[in-house]
């Protein structure tokens, strides 16, 4: 398997078949005398911004912290052990509701979409 070809930028689907985002970044750990090991998948605009440039990453991080609080200062992490299958999509054994990934969509739903007739 090639990490960049077969994993990076692929669709991630959670335990309930909800599309929760793409593999926006991958983090690996370098170990002395042993091959590197993938630790987690990153999701979110901060990881995407870093791919465009370090300055953009700082801006995205500051903006996310201002909008969503401290826990949004870094990209969301999905531990590599939670990956179950890599096919058309990447299936992970996590419920997106237990993470902060959809905080912004939840905010949108609760504050705007639900208040418009027919939205719920």
């Amino acid at each position: 398997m090639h990490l960049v070809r077969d994993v990076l930028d692929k669709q991630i689907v959670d335990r309930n078949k909800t599309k929760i985002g793409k593999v926006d970044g991958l983090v690996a750990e370098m170990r002395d005398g042993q091959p590197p090991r993938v630790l987690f998948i990153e999701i979110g605009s901060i990881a995407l911004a870093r791919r465009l440039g370090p300055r953009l990453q700082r801006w995205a991080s500051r903006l996310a912290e201002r909008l969503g609080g401290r826990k949004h200062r870094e990209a969301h992490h999905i531990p590599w052990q939670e990956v179950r299958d890599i096919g058309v999509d990447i299936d992970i054994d996590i419920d997106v509701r237990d993470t902060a990934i959809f905080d912004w969509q939840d905010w949108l739903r609760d504050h705007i979409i639900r208040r418009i007739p027919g939205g719920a």
Partner: protein
Amino acid sequence: MKKLVEISLGVVTSVGGFLEIGSIATAAQGGAAFGFQLIWAIVLGTVCIIFIVEMAGRFSAVSHHTISDAIRERFGFNFFLWPLLATLLVNSLVLAAEIGGASVALEFATGASFRWWALPVAFAIWLLLWKGTFGVIEKGVSMLGLVTLCFVVAAFELRPDWTAVAAGALPSLPQHDAGSYWFTAVSILGASISPYLFLFYSAGAIEDKWDSSYLGANRAIAGLGMSFGGTISVAVLIVAALVLPPQGIHQIDDYHQLPLLLTSVFGWWGFVLFTASLFIACFGASLEIGLQQAYLVAQGFGWNWGEDLKPSDNPGFSAVYSLAIFASAILMVLGLDPLKLTNFSMALTAASLPLTIVPMLFLMNDERYVKDRRNGWIGNAAVIFVIALGFVLAVVSIPLEIFGQS
């Protein structure tokens, strides 16, 4: 039998979805200014869009990916950003032109300026997307689009010289106004080969849960649907070529001239038919483009998407189409001329095509996605040729058009 019904429905949908403000306005302009001479541009554009739409459907049926989703996956985010931004921008302008077209139809019907109609039209589009399902939008609304067949009836009523029509299907050099000739040719190509058309078709294949058993149906729908659609565009051009120059109109510079196309043939009913055709064609296209904006963003960033889900189940997706529709409507409220915007955005479409088509051709030749259903060399060559032609013509003629007129 079930497949046959699906094929006919698909063809009807494509015919209904093909004609919109871009194809009506550019074909009418081509006919008024250059007679039958520009028919080749419609033929070339139609052949090209048949190839591209067939590829988009085949890709999604075999790989279970949409094109937008796969461009991000295959080429990475940093590349994807360019087609994403270009397509979002071009689509917003085209969407504004379509909302303008529907509003102009309401101006014809009521006498109140299109600027007053832009927001109510946007609201109606938004409401259908908010409450409707994919089936309602794809089949119901585009079925109404069959009213545009009245242009074909009109073309036959006018008894054109069919040898001259056939001669127009072969490319030829202009005898006068070369700059305007090539600009119109580019706009016609851009109107036929709209990115929203094939990106939407690829998302539709996923929404309708296509698999490899749909490849035959896909070929039939792409071939027949787009050919019929192209035929209606040619009919608009023929009608314009025969009706407008005798009334002294060699250049359409005001959208109020457009209903003349049908009033000269059908009288008062022609006015009703033209108004209805314009409204339905533009309204249907607006629905598709509004949805496509949301598909593009949601598929690119991996959010939940699907027109059959309730807005509260995909808040990001519904927020994108809501914003896209009202942002585009604002351009019309500000009083941009719908006709000028149409011409400009069609040429811009042609210029932006390589950004989506070139990665798409790579995908169509990648076994990891399309397995043994890869493109043949004819398909690849045809598409590369027309896209390159459109791009070169656009890069040359857009500056000519902008600076030549002022």
